[in-house]
């Protein structure tokens, strides 16, 4: 998909044994693995197993990975396969003697699901990366505004020690800054996933 220089650098460092780089890689892609597990409605212990297995494979895969840009796709496909495998094992346990007649999600359905999850995970990782680079005041303010339900401007003013009248403009300025982040280039239009429909 996109050649993210951050990911390329993280892969290079992780290959040399840098645990910190590995942690960052894992944190970036765990939401992708987790949401694919969610799509398959795995139980919590099964999801834990899948993530653990994918991570162990990922460590091995880093050594032979040629194009870091292909990494998210590899993670998505590997996670999806592990989910299917776990589900089959679960079914086999449940339907002990019965031959498996019901097929799990059809191949093209799985491909569509993977594309959607990938697109979403990449967009969300970009948003988190862009957010992390905002000035502290912006991060504080936006974090408050993202609460559900969000506090009133009066409460925010109290919490941040800023006049209430300044909150609206600061919010607009922070979001404008977020928008300008190079991480988000190409992500902020359409319905999300609009350009992922490339026929193969």
């Amino acid at each position, binding site marked *: 998909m996109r050649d993210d220089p951050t990911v390329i650098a993280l892969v290079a460092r*992780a290959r040399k*044994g840098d*645990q910190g780089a*590995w*942690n960052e890689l*894992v*944190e970036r892609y*765990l*939401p992708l693995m*987790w*949401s694919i597990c969610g799509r398959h409605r795995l139980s*919590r212990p099964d*999801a*834990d*197993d*899948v*993530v*653990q*297995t994918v*991570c*162990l*494979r*990922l*460590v*091995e895969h880093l*050594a032979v990975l040629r194009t870091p840009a292909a990494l998210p796709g590899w993670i998505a496909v590997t996670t999806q*396969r*592990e989910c299917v*495998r*776990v589900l*089959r*094992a679960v079914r*086999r346990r449940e339907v002990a003697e019965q031959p498996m007649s019901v097929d799990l999600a059809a191949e093209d359905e799985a491909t569509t699901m993977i594309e959607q999850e990938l697109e979403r*995970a990449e*967009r*969300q*990782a970009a*948003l*988190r990366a862009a*957010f992390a680079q905002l000035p502290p005041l912006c991060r504080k303010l*936006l974090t408050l*505004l*993202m609460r*559900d339900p969000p506090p009133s401007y009066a409460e925010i003013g109290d919490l941040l020690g800023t006049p209430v009248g300044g909150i609206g403009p600061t*919010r*607009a300025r922070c*979001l404008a800054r*977020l*928008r300008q982040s190079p991480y988000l280039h190409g992500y*902020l*239009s*359409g319905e*999300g996933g609009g350009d992922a429909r490339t026929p193969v």
Partner: protein
Amino acid sequence: MPEHRSENRWSDERLLDELATAMRAAEEIPREVVESARAAFAWRDIDDELARLAYDSEVDGEPAEALTRSESAPLRAMTFVCRSLTIELEVADDALIGQVVPSQVADIHVRVLSGVAATVRTDEVGGFAIRPIPDHPFHLQCRTSDGVSVATSWITL
């Protein structure tokens, strides 16, 4: 004019909403899952040659021929391949049945996340059995008599 409308820009509300969803997606992952994902890194085996999963009956379909001539078909068959050797593995009801190819005597260590769970020696023709089936994930480390050390990728049953 048209050039400004070509990009269907998100509103501030939409942007904040998407950001909130993105932050939540990362926050909702349980702490233990993050920890064990981080810990996976410590399991690199720099010195071992890695035998990759080349065939898995669960992914690639039924095995062409069963390794064991037993009446019941194996629950799962896998083949791990590297330059030095191939390890064939079958999951039976109560054991893992394996074969090192080319056939030779080797020590097989079963490694789980908490350490080495068991060690078995193959027979003269490279056959081995591991009982009971280890906790997963696990992997096998194979040391041949001429000093080659091979590790399979991690296996979850």
